């Protein structure tokens, strides 16, 4: 029985970790862990979750002491994992699996494969093209935004995610997009430079951190809210710096007449 408690808490921590690193909100992490622990009959547990860390303890006169502290770096959002854990949590609530089975399922979710690279690259291109249209670009602009969006995501997957810090990755990414748009505009396809750049920087925008930070603030979780807001602002400023950098060099080279 004692060993079982340890297993339950470990499984709950694992579920919490997967949720947090995949981009779930803090209250969802706390709620999911809490439900799981209650379901398996542990009364004395309490947990604190921050946007990059997780603390959990339990133990009183009747139950054995347990504590775990975990640092969780912010990584790419994987909403499929969030949905899968959510589903698992519902199933546990309804059916009550034995804890060993829960662990197996958690390992399965942890190792869920990411979408193939080529799909993600194409999706980024298609998204950029469509958004370019929404920002009043014409078909030629959309084609250019599609190409720039594809190349941007290939750059993100193969270079910046592997070797670069977040700030440098975003600055170089948006600079790359602006450069590509300039080249396409002058030598290949596209009529409106501005719309082309606007469409193709969309894949860099921090949608998940921005939305989560708002939800965090609304739930009264100011620390995690501020961390995520800061994260979103940093990304936005990096994008602006990247665009501005390329444009100012271009402006210098062409003598200020071309922009």
């Amino acid at each position: 029985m004692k060993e079982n408690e340890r297993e339950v808490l470990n499984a709950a921590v694992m579920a919490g970790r997967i949720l947090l690193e995949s981009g779930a909100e803090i209250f969802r992490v706390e709620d999911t862990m809490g439900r799981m622990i209650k379901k398996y009959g542990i009364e004395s547990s309490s947990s604190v979750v921050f946007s990059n860390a997780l603390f959990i303890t339990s133990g009183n006169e009747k139950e054995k002491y347990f504590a775990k502290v975990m640092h969780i770096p912010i990584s790419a959002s994987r909403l499929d994992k969030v949905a899968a854990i959510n589903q698992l949590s519902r199933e546990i609530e309804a059916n009550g699996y034995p804890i060993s089975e829960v662990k197996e399922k958690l390992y399965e979710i942890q190792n869920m494969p990411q979408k193939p690279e080529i799909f993600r690259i194409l999706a980024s291109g298609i998204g950029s093209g469509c958004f370019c249209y929404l920002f009043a670009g014409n078909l030629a602009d959309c084609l250019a935004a599609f190409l720039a969006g594809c190349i941007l995501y290939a750059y993100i997957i193969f270079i910046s995610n592997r070797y670069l810090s977040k700030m440098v990755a975003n600055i170089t990414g948006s600079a790359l997009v602006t450069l590509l748009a300039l080249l396409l505009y002058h030598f290949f396809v596209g009529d409106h430079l501005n719309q082309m750049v606007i469409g193709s920087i969309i894949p860099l925008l921090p949608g998940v951190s921005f939305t989560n930070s708002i939800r965090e603030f609304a739930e009264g979780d100011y620390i995690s809210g501020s961390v995520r807001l800061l994260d979103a602002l940093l990304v936005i400023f990096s994008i602006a710096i990247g665009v501005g950098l390329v444009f100012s060099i271009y402006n210098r080279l062409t003598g200020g007449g071309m922009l």
Partner: protein
Amino acid sequence: MMIQFLAAFIGTAAFALLFGVEKEYYFYCGLIGGIGRIFYVWLTGSFAITESTFFTTLVIIFLSRFFAVRKKCPSTIFVVSGILPLVPGAGIYWMAYYFVINKIELASKNGFSALKIAVAIVLGIVFIFELPQKIFTIGLKENR
């Protein structure tokens, strides 16, 4: 209008894939993006951009919670991809652009308007998430 809907539909669904959303939800993500876009275009006819953004956000978040209850999944999936067409990417771009060509006044004007749009999105999200869950389970027998 139809093309606007389609562009928003496909664009939103494509970005849903980038956020790692499962296949079965692409359609709903796209639908929310498309409906949001139609509302936005319709509202900008008579309102300023900030108000249009606010009301469109209300619609998008409401639909997100509606579908989340029916598909039994976290609403984040729909919210994140649904509001993407509203996020002021263009405002950020124009800010950088005018800053470079030394038109500081226009740069700050665009930066400030991007901030106003962001605040409108924030308010929209906060208001709809305050609504009790009961509203969204109306018509679902198993949840009663």
